């Protein structure tokens, strides 16, 4: 007997929160709005923890069918939710981290206009994200997939009076649509070949046909990868994520670091049965992930906006997850997803706390020396920096090391992927410690920064950079201040998780039992089985190597940004051309603009708008309209209003009809 878990409540409670805040929140006081939003995030979390405690008694996968959605001919789709180990991991992340970020937002957004709007969108996001995670078929997953894109668009464009924010929202939305086309095409091929979109049915029919290798499965997998690159910000569709930092910082933490952007990784892990049959698609995933990881890491090294560094870091870490999926180490990918959710959410929230304490300043060149002034933020950020850089035994070390180990023992490209991944780990360590030193150590450079940039532009730089719509003047009056505890509480919890989270999956090579991998084993067992090439000694050696690389990155950052602060300027002067290439993000935005956006805009503006829309469609309409009008003007003369003229017409044509019938004309014309 399978208990009814009322899974539908999990997404619908946040949706109710969205409705209440969205419809009534404008007039409600802020405490009421935040209470509604927090309840909307808390209840799903409690329900998920209830599922965790009852999990042993469930028959897996636990599927709850809420009713038929589409039933047409042979095709059938249900509103059905399912829970298995993988779903549960995602549910814990989404509701747990989601709730913490909601709490944090109460403090961070306290002085904002549109407070109710923010929390309504946040709850809307939770609704769609939980739908995505719980969905039992591709179609319902796609609903969540599109919905989180919508919520992301709304929240990136939260400061909609700012042009750059509105543009960033649109960019995110449009770039995501490109990926979504891939998802849609994958679903069409699935329907054509399987006649169903249910995960369980599709996977069951694949497992009964061992002779299916590649072919249409590769096509489906590659289109799914296209969808995943859009949502998870991978090459070639990563460009929207750095711009998405225009949104409020809690949004960057929740949507653009911890949950939504990992949807692509979740989707690949969820549909790994497809990918296992298509080595080609897997190789594509691995190469995309690996290339994105190093590409984004190099860009991250030269950014000066604290949130943009973290954004490129997110793209890079997502690349690691793709790399893991690409070498069929889905467990490692999901594990990195989990630990990344901890430390990257923490990094963003801590960065938000820094920005908050500096009254909206985001440029690291204006920071420095904040260690003593905001100690709690500093210490939690330190935990996150060490975690992401891969220092044992913190969370990031364990998961990243697992990925690198799995890449190393993978056949084919494995060694190259490992080498690039390892180098990226060094870069990660470098740019994270660069951020750490620039923000918290040395002298406070706010005044020097002001002097350097204020006079040039005539307007205070941070006034333009400031994402806060209101209370700007008042903000500037504040001295540097530590954030309130409603913001620091989530930081501390996430810091603890970032420190101990790795022990969930402590690898066997280091004396652990990798509980996390065993947990996911029933869902993510690959057909290839556990790789035999590895050994505990190898894992230990590789762990030492990657630790060494992380320390090297730290050392270089220490040298350049702490011990000898004049070094970076000299260094960048020597490699000016390379530096400007990296600092300008390899000109990718400009290349895309020239190659894709400009031609599309040209076609839209001149061919489609002027020629087709205004010429053919509008012109045709005008011709039809004017000709009807002219004809009507002529015919309207008959209606004179004079009764005797009507009677005359009547008599005339009646007479003609009589005459016609008399002379037998009717027979020739009508009766045949």
């Amino acid at each position, binding site marked *: 007997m399978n208990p009814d878990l009322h899974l539908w409540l999990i997404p619908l409670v946040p949706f109710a929160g969205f409705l209440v805040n969205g419809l009534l929140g404008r007039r409600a006081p802020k405490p009421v709005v935040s209470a509604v939003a927090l309840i909307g995030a808390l209840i799903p979390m409690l329900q998920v923890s209830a599922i965790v405690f009852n999990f042993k008694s469930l028959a897996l996968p636990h599927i709850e069918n809420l009713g038929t959605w589409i039933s047409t001919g042979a095709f059938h789709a249900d509103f059905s939710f399912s829970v298995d180990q993988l779903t549960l991991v995602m549910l814990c992340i989404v509701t747990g981290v989601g709730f913490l970020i909601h709490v944090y937002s109460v403090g961070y957004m306290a002085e904002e206009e549109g407070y109710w709007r923010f929390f309504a969108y946040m709850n809307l996001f939770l609704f769609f994200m939980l739908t995505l995670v719980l969905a039992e078929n591709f179609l319902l997953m796609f609903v969540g997939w599109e919905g989180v894109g919508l919520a992301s668009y709304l929240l990136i464009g939260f400061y909609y009076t700012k042009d750059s924010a509105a543009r960033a929202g649109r960019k995110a939305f449009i770039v995501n649509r490109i990926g979504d086309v891939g998802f849609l095409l994958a679903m069409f091929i699935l329907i054509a070949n399987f006649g169903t979109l249910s995960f369980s049915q599709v996977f069951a029919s694949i497992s009964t046909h061992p002779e299916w290798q590649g072919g249409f499965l590769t096509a489906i997998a590659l289109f799914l990868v296209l969808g995943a690159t859009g949502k998870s910000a991978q090459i070639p569709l990563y460009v929207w994520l750095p711009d998405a930092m225009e949104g409020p910082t809690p949004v960057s933490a929740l949507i653009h670091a911890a949950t939504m952007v990992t949807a692509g990784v979740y989707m690949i892990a969820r549909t790994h049965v497809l990918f296992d049959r298509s080595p080609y698609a897997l190789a594509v995933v691995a190469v995309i992930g690996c290339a994105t990881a190093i590409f984004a890491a190099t860009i991250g090294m030269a950014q000066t906006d604290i949130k943009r560094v973290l954004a490129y870091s997110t793209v890079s870490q997502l690349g690691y997850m793709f790399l893991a999926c690409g070498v069929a180490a889905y467990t490692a990918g999901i594990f990195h997803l989990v630990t990344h959710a901890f430390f990257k959410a923490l990094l963003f929230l801590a960065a938000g706390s820094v920005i908050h304490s500096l009254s909206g300043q985001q440029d690291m060149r204006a920071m420095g020396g904040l260690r003593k002034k905001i100690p709690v933020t500093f210490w939690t950020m330190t935990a996150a920096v060490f975690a992401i850089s891969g220092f044992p035994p913190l969370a990031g070390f364990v998961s990243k090391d697992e990925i690198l180990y799995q890449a190393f023992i993978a056949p084919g490209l494995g060694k190259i992927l490992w080498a690039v991944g390892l180098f990226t780990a060094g870069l990660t360590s470098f740019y994270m410690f660069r951020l750490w030193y620039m923000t918290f150590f040395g002298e406070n450079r706010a005044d020097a920064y002001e002097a350097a940039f204020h006079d040039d532009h005539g307007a205070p730089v941070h006034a333009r950079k400031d994402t806060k719509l209101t209370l700007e003047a008042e903000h500037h009056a504040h001295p540097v201040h530590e954030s309130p505890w409603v913001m620091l509480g989530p930081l501390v919890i996430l810091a603890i998780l970032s420190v101990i989270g790795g022990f969930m999956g402590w690898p066997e090579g280091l004396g652990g039992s990798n509980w996390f991998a065993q947990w996911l084993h029933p869902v993510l067992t690959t057909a290839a089985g556990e790789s035999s090439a590895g050994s505990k000694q190898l894992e230990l050696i590789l762990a030492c190597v990657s630790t060494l690389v992380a320390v090297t990155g730290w050392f270089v950052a220490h040298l350049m940004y702490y011990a000898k602060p004049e070094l970076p300027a000299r260094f960048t002067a020597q490699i000016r051309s390379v530096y400007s290439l990296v600092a300008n993000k390899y000109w990718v935005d400009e290349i895309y603009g020239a190659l894709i956006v400009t031609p599309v805009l040209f076609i839209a503006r001149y061919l489609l708008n002027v020629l087709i829309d205004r010429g053919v469609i509008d012109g045709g309409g005008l011709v039809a309209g004017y000709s009807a009008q002219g004809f009507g003007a002529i015919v*309207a003369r008959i*209606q*004179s*209003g*004079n*009764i*005797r003229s009507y*009677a*005359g017409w009547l*008599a005339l044509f009646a007479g003609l009809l009589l005459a016609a019938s008399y002379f037998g004309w009717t027979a020739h014309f009508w009766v045949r």
Partner: protein
Amino acid sequence: MVPIAYYLVLSAILFSIGVAAFLIKRNIITVFMSIELMLNAVNLTFVAFTRHWSQVTGHLQVSGQIFVFFVMVVAAAEAAVGLAIIIAVFRARNTLNVDQIDLMKL
């Protein structure tokens, strides 16, 4: 026995007079009367044919006569409503000339 053609010719003459009067006359009362004339021309045709078919078939045919009653009833109703409208129009516009009552145009 008068042949049916006589009745029909008379009816046609009456109807033509009605049509002509309808077209020529300007006074709305006269126009109204010409309508009555056309209706009665039709009635004459009905009763003529009834009588004719009764003779041809040897059975009494009554449907044409019943139709005449219908026409009379409708004509009476029409006269009542029509005269009421005429009075209303006259009160409003102070004329009975149909050429001046031409508001129902575009």
